[in-house]
């Protein structure tokens, strides 16, 4: 159990996917200007990433590896993830419209989100077991959501501040993200 706790702490804080591994930055800067969208995106990523982590692990270990097709991993993963997102979108639209209303607009963005693909590749690279894969995918996604929501709070204030013109918007957003990344050094060495 404590192994999993350590893995979780590592994925959420120490190796935070956004701030330490530089994955998923486009949506990070894209949707963090408002708290609601940040929360929506965070939830969508949690949802998709767990599914994607599981399904790519299965693809790797039950299909690619046994047949020696590891070199097709990139192709296989992206197709599997794209199909998964499509499927999730259709499923939500039909079955849980309320959730779809909240997450729907974020789902297409996720297909081309480095964070999702990146975590799936990390899971394979680290040779995680299936359960470890689930834990790591879930906690990486939580870390993504946490960073996104914290950043949205910071960003909302930056938007109201007197930022010089050339720095406005993405530019100061990036500097702000740098400051956040700096703050996350607090967790260095804890897992």
């Amino acid at each position, binding site marked *: 159990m404590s192994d999993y706790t350590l893995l979780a702490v590592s994925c959420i804080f120490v190796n935070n996917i956004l701030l330490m591994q530089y994955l998923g930055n486009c949506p990070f800067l894209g949707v963090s200007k408002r708290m609601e969208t940040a929360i929506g995106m965070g939830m969508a990523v949690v949802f998709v990433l767990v599914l994607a982590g599981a399904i790519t692990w299965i693809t790797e270990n039950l299909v690619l590896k046994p047949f020696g097709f590891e070199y097709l991993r*990139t192709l296989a993963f992206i197709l599997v993830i794209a199909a998964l997102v499509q499927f999730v979108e259709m499923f939500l639209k039909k079955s849980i419209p309320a959730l779809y209303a909240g997450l729907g607009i974020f789902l297409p963005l996720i297909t081309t989100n480095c964070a999702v693909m990146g975590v799936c590749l*990390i899971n394979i690279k680290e040779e995680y077991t299936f359960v470890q894969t689930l834990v790591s995918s879930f906690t990486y996604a939580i870390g993504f959501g946490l960073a996104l929501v914290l950043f949205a709070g910071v960003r909302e204030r930056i938007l109201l501040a007197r930022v010089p013109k050339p*720095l406005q918007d993405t530019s100061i957003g990036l500097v702000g993200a740098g400051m956040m*990344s700096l703050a996350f050094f607090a967790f260095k060495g804890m897992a």
Partner: protein
Amino acid sequence: MAKTVVQEFTKGLWAEIPPFRIVLGLCPTLAVTKSVENGIGMGIALTFVLVCSNVVISLLRNIIPKQVRIACFIVVIATFVTVVELVMQAYTYPLFLKLGIFIPLIVVNCILLGRAEAFAAKNGVISSFADGLGIGIGFTLSLTALSIIREVLGSGTFYNIPVFGPSFKPFSFMIQAPGAFVCLGLMLCVMNMLGKK
């Protein structure tokens, strides 16, 4: 009026240079620009994939059904990414190790799908080639510029050659994660000040 091929090429070098004018593809920009070598390597890899996929998609644009075009684009892009992956492993293995998962991640880089969707799917082969090459070189230039700043200040070297005297203690913040964000942010500011023209 349609732009000339030259214009399609040059727009990627300044007017639409990624990731400054088109704010896409931030992850590799942040992750690999620790050193000039990595930056240029990544830029070339991406340029290769971009040019190839732009050309192929442009060639096939009339056969690809609208409904599944994204899936087809992804297959084309993923194919070339894998080619790059294999070739880099075979010939520039140390670089491949340094760039790590950011090579396979080219497949989800928004620039590629963005160009495929916005340009190659609508334009001829030659224009698409020029567009891909321009954007790719623009991206490479950006990464190079950023990595020069980061490597020189953060490691005290340029292309692994020391540029300061031996007593210099490098400002290694620049090659760490927060430095990457701050540096890119400030560079974006400079680009904003320089304007579009």
